[in-house]
């Protein structure tokens, strides 16, 4: 196999800088939204003392979870040695970094005292899974940077499988930590479940790959990079498998709860009577974010896979947002059970299903995280050699997979 050569993107000034300017506007708007929330206090948002985490958290969790999963492609290439995915490893790492930075920015800017970020970085309670996550997130960034370096620096290439393995284990732990933010909430009927950790891992794999597919398709379209149908089909089918895994864990989560009479209330709420949450669950997550994309990618027309895979990726992406919305907001909207078996009433909305309407500043802040991630990817692609010269199927040489891998691995610098 020919050695893969990588390049920066060049030219396309109008399109590139136009898009960058657009993203810049979104980022500035999100900063303005954060300032507004900070200055006025959170009463200008839809968040209350009952729904304490809102749209910023939904979108930030999406970004963080997707960041971990965006590294799928790099892992498959370096850890599992699949040549098809190898040339995409660098882009995969870049996207993972960018998504994580975007997600953390949203999370931090939503804090009541975002000005105390230094306190959060220096004062720790190690019993808190949240504190652990601060380490897991910053550590993930460091690991991915090293991983990118050993991939991009030829003399270090031989360490790529080891770095890839560390990165893969790290991201599994990271997503376990993110899922456990909810899994460890003993008091809440909708959370307090060990299955949330593997569910979040599955979500990260699926949402991260969907984000990667969309990034790849957009990049190839923008730069004129050829994208082979065989590669696209593989990415598409992999997405289908991962989306099915998410559905599996979702089924386990709800079936387990349904079995316990104690949890019948919250299940009835999410699955039947929750209004917008029920709709988002069945239509958003299960149908449009799960069954439809799975059907799309397993019936790909030969030679014309790209359109369908992009559509499936968009659906999985949106379905993921719906799913996290149901988990985060729906779980809080359902009233906390303080007195099992009793009807309760108070001035503090005890026993009342809360409604939540995300406000414009919240949504703007969250969208800014996505813009930030996109901008980081674009700057990265422009300044360093993340993209291979070609992604045509012939360049990926599917016929001499094992031999090619070895040859590439052993080639002297």
């Amino acid at each position, binding site marked *: 196999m020919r050695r893969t050569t990588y390049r920066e993107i060049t030219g396309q000034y109008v399109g590139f800088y136009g898009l960058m300017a657009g993203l810049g506007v979104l980022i500035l708007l999100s900063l303005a939204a954060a300032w507004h929330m*900070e200055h*006025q*206090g*959170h*009463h200008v948002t839809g968040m*209350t*003392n*009952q729904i*304490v*985490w809102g749209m910023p958290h939904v979108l930030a969790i999406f970004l963080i979870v997707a960041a971990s999963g965006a590294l799928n492609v790099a892992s498959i290439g370096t850890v599992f040695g699949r040549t098809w995915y190898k040339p995409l490893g660098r882009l995969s790492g870049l996207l993972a970094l960018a998504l994580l930075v975007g997600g953390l920015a949203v999370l931090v800017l939503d*804090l*009541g*005292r*975002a000005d*105390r*970020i230094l*306190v*959060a970085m220096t*004062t*720790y*309670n190690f*019993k*808190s*899974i*949240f*504190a652990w996550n*601060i380490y897991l997130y910053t550590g993930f960034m460091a690991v991915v940077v090293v991983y990118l370096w050993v991939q991009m620096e030829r003399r270090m290439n031989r360490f790529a499988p080891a770095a890839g393995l560390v990165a893969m284990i790290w991201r599994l732990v990271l997503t376990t930590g993110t899922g456990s*933010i909810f899994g*460890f*909430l*003993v*008091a*809440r009927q909708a959370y307090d479940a060990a299955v949330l950790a593997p569910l979040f891992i599955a979500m990260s794999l699926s949402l991260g790959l969907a984000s990667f597919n969309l990034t790849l398709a957009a990049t190839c379209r923008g730069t004129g990079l050829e994208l082979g149908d065989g590669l696209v089909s593989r990415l598409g089918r992999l997405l289908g498998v991962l989306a099915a895994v998410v559905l599996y864990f979702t089924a386990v989560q709800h079936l387990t709860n349904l079995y316990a009479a104690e949890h019948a209330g919250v299940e009835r709420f999410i699955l039947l009577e929750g209004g917008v949450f029920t709709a988002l669950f069945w239509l958003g997550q299960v149908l449009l974010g799960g069954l439809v994309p799975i059907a799309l990618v397993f019936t790909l027309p030969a030679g014309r896979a790209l359109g369908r895979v992009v559509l499936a990726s968009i659906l999985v992406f949106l379905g993921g947002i719906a799913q996290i919305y149901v988990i985060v907001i729906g779980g*809080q909207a359902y009233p*906390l059970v*303080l*007195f099992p*078996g*009793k*009807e*309760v*009433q*108070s*001035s*503090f*909305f*005890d026993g009342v299903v809360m409604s939540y309407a995300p406000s414009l500043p919240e949504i703007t802040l969250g969208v800014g995280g996505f813009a930030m991630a996109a901008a980081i990817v674009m700057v990265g692609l422009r300044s360093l050699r993340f993209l291979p010269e070609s992604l045509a199927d012939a360049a990926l040489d599917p016929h001499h997979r094992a031999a090619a891998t070895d040859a590439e691995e052993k080639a002297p610098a």
Partner: protein
Amino acid sequence: MTGRTPQQGFDPQRRRFLSAAAAAAGVTLAPGVTLYGVTAAGSAAARAPEDPVTSSVRWGLLVDVNKCRDGCNACVTACVEENGLRGNGRPETDAQWIRKVELRDPSTGAKRSLPLMCQHCASPPCVDVCPTGASFRRADGIVLVDKHICIGCRYCMLACPYKARSFIHEVVEDQKPYAPRGKGTVESCTFCVHRVDEGRTPACVEACAEAGGDAMTFGDLNDPNSRISKQVAAYVTDQIRPDLGLDPGVRYRNL
């Protein structure tokens, strides 16, 4: 003086002793010192202002639900007044440290009315989840938020099984000097820690007694001679969500 004393939580015997001690101290010591010596009376060992709290004391509150009248809001009003919790007319975002909850058993129709506030758990979930350690439990069992290091993430609010915490959604002005509170941090019932450290009872307890309810008893659960310990020993009392195993400092009788 009549039989009704505002300091319901205190054991009369110790009070008698401490009153005598106070008289003696008043003779020998400067007024400023006397003050603290006397007023730290609620604890098993009177605590001087320079002494830190210790775990030899565990502050607790017993609510006799039979004596808590439906429609009476004296404890809530007293809390709002004491801690300066003026709202902004937005019930969804205004802070509530204590609230009255009306219960109804749907199968029998039986009704109950009770005050609910931070339960000052021995194993508080809010303290476990707090990333910076701003949520903490004082040695004497009072669960507090150190607003100097609270970053406003609200994870403790998600973790609290009693919905006892509020996030400050707006700028606060004219705070009480002894109850600092500000936008962007989380807060909850402090057991009126500023009063407890002076040897007084929480404002809600005092108000309940003054309103003739006498439904709340405050005191040291570690002191076998305190009124609350005697009552907890004599009667069956309940915790809210005992299944969680948090060992709350607030107990309910006749729930």
